[in-house]
């Protein structure tokens, strides 16, 4: 079955420190990959996406992600976090076809320490 795994339920990072959130996928073929952020009580905002091409993708708010086919991973990174980055982060995938629904990981809750 197709699945997306985010191994870390919670991550705590000090403000100004670097961040990496892990995401692994299990699909028959390389899926299309996304990272979304959700603030409390809000909808989902797209941070970045990978369809093909350059394996390092840049997103909004200073985030980037690297696709590694050999590791079936799509980890999200940020060199220096801000208190406003505290939120829930979801990795998601779909297998292609423009109408497919997204399969989400369980999310990683990011806590920023002052």
């Amino acid at each position, binding site marked *: 079955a197709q699945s997306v795994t985010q191994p870390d339920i919670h991550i705590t990072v000090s403000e100004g420190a670097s961040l990496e959130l892990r995401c692994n996928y299990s699909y028959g073929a390389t899926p*299309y990959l*996304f990272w*979304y952020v959700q603030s409390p*009580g*809000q*909808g*989902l*905002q*797209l941070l970045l*996406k990978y*369809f093909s091409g350059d394996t390092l993708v840049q997103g909004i708010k200073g985030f980037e992600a690297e696709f590694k086919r050999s590791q079936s991973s799509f980890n999200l990174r940020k060199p220096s976090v801000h208190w406003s980055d505290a939120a829930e982060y*979801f990795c998601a995938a*779909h297998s*292609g*076809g*423009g*109408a497919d*629904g*997204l399969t*989400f*990981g*369980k*999310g990683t809750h990011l806590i920023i320490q002052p």
Partner: protein
Amino acid sequence: DAMVIQNPRYQVTQFGKPVTLSCSQTLNHNVMYWYQQKSSQAPKLLFHYYDKDFNNEADTPDNFQSRRPNTSFCFLDIRSPGLGDAAMYLCATSRGGLAPNEQFFGPGTRLTVL
């Protein structure tokens, strides 16, 4: 700005009392999705419309129905809400077609069942 709008943002209903949630979009997208997100969980796809074609997920309970009267609007009907249906309901849209594309999410409607 083009966007996905959900009304109401908060909905309280009584056990067994039918409720309808609304979603509208100004993106002119072909596909509209409904996701259910229970507390501290990932969003889960309930169904989607590709134009007028309805696509139900296999494990979506019969209690959940949807209508799409035109391109811009899509409704989620819960015929007899149970306590377990309390959740955030997220509407999303995408262009559809064969090429990969992203989904745009609304802010969600938080449903409380008393």
